């Protein structure tokens, strides 16, 4: 493969890297001959679904694989040096000093019992050979650069005193403070909120540009890639299937997998109510990778040749390579049965029947103190929310974590009792939970899980119930055989289908879905969203869709409520809220969402939201958003704005709503 056009040798050169995990049930071939190169100062994104081997590949480069992972063959050259032939001791001096790493979970990647200074200063002293005082000054400098307020004091803090976003900033500061030539970031923002994610990405982007550090950025979020990367490598089943400049990948993808992946994302411009494209099937089991092209079972353009030989990467343009026998990938084959996009039923006007009515709902949590007197601290999770959902309508609730959106869901379901306010539900409300692995009793079979609501409510007799079970399981697109399985035997997408079936069992009038797609891979996410939309139209159920994924909410919801610190700050029809946000917070949220389009991303002026959510323990007197608001004035800090109607169809709680 000769796609290396630059004359200077690349900073990192990976050749035919193979990694395996030996398990009790067979060898998982996680990485199967990956080759690519990263040049000085270049930002390369590695994209792929979970199980595509992207993390295993990154960990293999520094031999950080956990047992039983093992690099079986291949070469990794960093500035011409073969990292695979280095001893563990030599490699240790490369880690941190020449290659920095930032991992996904900011909660567990810092040592909880050590102050930041203890974790940060010694590596700087070692790699830059500085005295303790100088290293300390350096650490403070970097904490300042990554945007940590009051860095001198923060340096002596323990990790638990910081929020997730702060910790991830510390991780980045730690990684960059040793002046590495290359930074490997494995899903560094996945655990964070969109606004914080946007801040972190911006920090990484400016700082790597400033220091000339090259970067390998592993993610499953195509929007982030468009915002961030120079080049993109798309991984599928342990191989790179496409590699090239970011614009080529997004504007002229050549591999069917990349093409399908891009079309599964709800676009901001596409007509709503157009069905999302979905990739049928599931990634192959890497214990026994299929012969030939690994994607062929899910590919509409597959031909006989794909079953025999796996295609090699071949050039598609300047620096753009893809591994597919078809010169243009799917092209024209898109419209086969499973990948066609039949229109959704169109925008049927919601029937004039209110299914959910919430009036001035509040929920306060208080925890009595043991040793101090005075009133117990009160967390105002929900603070006077008023909402309505019509029959057949979808209400989207968006907001950062901690804004009270999940508490609203729990209140709706009767899982919590409101402190004050009223909830009226016409009929029955049911829920689809976020994490498909935690929402089922692992000791029960799928059939028993779906049947449980029926039994509890003494619905029908045995025969009627088993008929209903079979009807439900086919309704959500699974087979009757799945009724006999245990939850652990199903994939994430299948489990979420089961969750939907369980929610449908008692013919509810409202389904509350709390982040139903955020634990799923992109290709599966589209399947679940399509399923929910179909059911909504088929059964006329009202939906409350809670998510932090604004693109999905925009796609699925008719009306949107934006929540901030327990209050609804903006409420109105989805398109209007997105196209002309009235509240500055809505505006900031929308701006923070990375769009899967590098051209738009480059043009967008990203005005980032400063700071983080204030603690709901002591809410400010005035507007809750004033501390982060770019247009806040004195009145915002003293007087609380109420929800008003700046436009006929919409409500917003802001003093300056007309001036935006």
């Amino acid at each position, binding site marked *: 493969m000769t796609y290396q056009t630059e004359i200077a040798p690349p900073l990192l050169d990976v050749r035919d890297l193979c990694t395996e995990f030996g398990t009790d049930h067979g060898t998982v071939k996680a990485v199967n001959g990956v080759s690519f190169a990263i040049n000085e100062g270049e930002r390369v994104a590695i994209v792929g679904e979970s199980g595509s081997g992207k993390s295993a590949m990154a960990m293999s480069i520094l031999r950080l694989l956990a047992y039983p992972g093992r690099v079986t063959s291949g070469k990794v050259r960093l500035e011409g040096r073969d990292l695979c032939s280095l001893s563990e001791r030599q490699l240790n001096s490369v880690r941190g000093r020449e290659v920095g790493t930032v991992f996904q979970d900011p909660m567990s990647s810092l040592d909880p019992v050590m102050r930041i200074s203890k974790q940060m200063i010694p590596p700087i002293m070692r790699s830059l050979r500085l005295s303790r005082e100088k290293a300390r000054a350096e650490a403070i400098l970097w904490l300042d650069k990554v945007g940590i307020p009051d860095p001198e004091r923060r340096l002596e803090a323990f990790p638990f005193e910081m929020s997730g976003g702060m910790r991830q900033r510390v991780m980045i500061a730690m990684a960059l403070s040793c002046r590495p030539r290359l930074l490997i970031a494995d899903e560094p923002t996945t655990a964070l909120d969109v606004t914080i994610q946007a801040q972190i990405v911006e920090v990484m982007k400016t700082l790597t540009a400033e220091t000339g550090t090259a970067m390998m950025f592993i993610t499953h979020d195509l929007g982030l890639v468009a915002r961030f990367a120079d080049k993109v490598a798309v991984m599928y089943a342990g191989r790179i299937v496409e590699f090239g400049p970011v614009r080529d990948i997004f504007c002229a993808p050549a591999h069917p997998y990349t093409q399908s992946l891009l079309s599964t994302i709800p676009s901001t411009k596409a007509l709503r109510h157009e069905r999302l494209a979905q990739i049928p099937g599931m990634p192959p089991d890497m214990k026994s990778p299929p012969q030939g092209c690994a994607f062929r079972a899910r590919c509409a353009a597959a031909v006989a040749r794909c079953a025999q030989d796996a295609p090699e990467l071949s050039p598609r343009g300047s620096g753009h390579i893809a591994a597919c026998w078809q010169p243009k990938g799917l092209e024209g084959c898109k419209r086969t049965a499973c990948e066609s996009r039949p229109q959704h039923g169109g925008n049927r006007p919601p029937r004039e029947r209110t299914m959910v009515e919430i009036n001035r709902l509040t929920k306060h949590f208080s925890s009595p103190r043991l040793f101090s007197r005075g009133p117990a601290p009160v967390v105002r999770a929900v603070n006077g929310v008023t909402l309505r959902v019509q029959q057949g309508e979808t209400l989207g609730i968006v907001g950062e974590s901690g804004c009270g959106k999940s508490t609203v869901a729990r209140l709706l379901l009767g*899982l919590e009792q409101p402190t004050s306010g009223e909830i009226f539900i016409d009929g029955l409300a049911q829920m689809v939970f976020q994490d498909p692995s935690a929402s089922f009793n692992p000791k029960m079979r799928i059939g028993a899980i779906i049947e449980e609501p029926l039994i509890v409510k003494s619905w029908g007799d045995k025969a009627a*119930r088993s008929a209903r079970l079979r009807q439900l399981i086919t309704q959500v697109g699974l087979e009757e055989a799945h009724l006999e399985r245990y939850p652990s035997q199903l994939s994430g997408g299948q489990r979420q289908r089961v969750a939907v079936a369980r929610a449908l069992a008692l013919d509810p009038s409202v389904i509350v879905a709390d982040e139903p797609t955020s634990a799923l891979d992109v290709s599966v996410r589209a399947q679940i969203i399509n399923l929910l939309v179909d059911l909504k139209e088929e059964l006329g159920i009202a939906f409350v869709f809670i998510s932090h994924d604004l693109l999905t909410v925009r796609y699925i919801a008719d009306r949107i409520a934006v929540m901030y610190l327990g209050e609804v700050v903006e409420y109105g029809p989805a398109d209007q809220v997105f196209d002309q946000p009235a509240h500055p917070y809505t505006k900031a949220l929308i701006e923070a969402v990375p769009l899967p389009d590098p051209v738009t991303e480059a043009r967008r002026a990203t005005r980032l939201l400063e700071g983080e959510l204030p603690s709901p323990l002591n809410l400010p007197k005035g507007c809750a958003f004033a501390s982060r608001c770019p247009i806040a004035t004195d009145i915002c800090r003293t007087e609380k704005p109420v929800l008003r109607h700046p436009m006929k169809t919409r409500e917003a709680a802001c003093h300056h709503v007309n001036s935006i």
Partner: protein
Amino acid sequence: MKQDATNIPQSLSNPSSLSRAARGQLARISQGRFLGNRKTRVALVILVPILLLTAFAPILPLQGPLETNLRAMMQPPSLEHPFGTDRMGRDILARTLSGVQISLLVGLSVAAIALVAGILLGTLAGFFGGIVDRTVMSIVDIFLAFPSLLLAIGLVAVMGTGVIPVIFAIALADVPRFIRLQRSLVLSLRSRAFIDAARTVSAPQGWLMRRHIVPNTVAPMLVAASIAAANAILVEASLSFLGLGIMPPTPSLGNIIRDGQTYLEQAWWISTLPGLVILAIAISFHFLSDGVREALDPRSRQ
């Protein structure tokens, strides 16, 4: 396990779902996962011969455990007396096997009592919280404040000696630990999403406990029970050694060792061989608990 479409509704409407869950666990134990475990196999290699010998002790060509033979006192191990004889010419192997019988009876009874009482009270305390929790846990805390051996000694002193009092004395010291463990398991389960899911259809509390909570605590509780069984065997031996448990002439591993300790220099076998048997039994039970844990661990489940 047989799987056909019709057995689901039946099994669901079966009121004894707790026992069904337990049967499920046992079925998993009987599947290769448990027997395929190396530690399990080591434990079984030790335990099975001991159990067989104990079971067939009456028909073995041994002298009865209480029979004395004044012509063969303090004999070293030989073919006729594989473990030798004591100062009254009683056969040590016969006495040891009879002691093992009592040991196992004590160990398994204690484990069963602790398991049942722990699951019952721990579930109630953890699930209902509030006043139920505070009452149960205050009593538990009081019991836990005593060293378990001292507690057992005190109870035996009150209730008298013999197998039944010993079982109750040891179990009473173990039950609070089981309540604690069960309660903590219940607390972590109570906030899981599948409990919420059942609550959204207003499933009654008894249903939640029976169907969702207890089946998910059985595995760790079984592990704790097999360790408790090993511990109970040792405590019984300790009590008997101190002259508080099983009273002579009824043989128990503890009182055999006690008898022999005076003659340790002249007749080492009297104390040493039964001592080794206790060691072997205790180690096997610990290995068994590891085997149970690995067999039931949902993380290693396929």
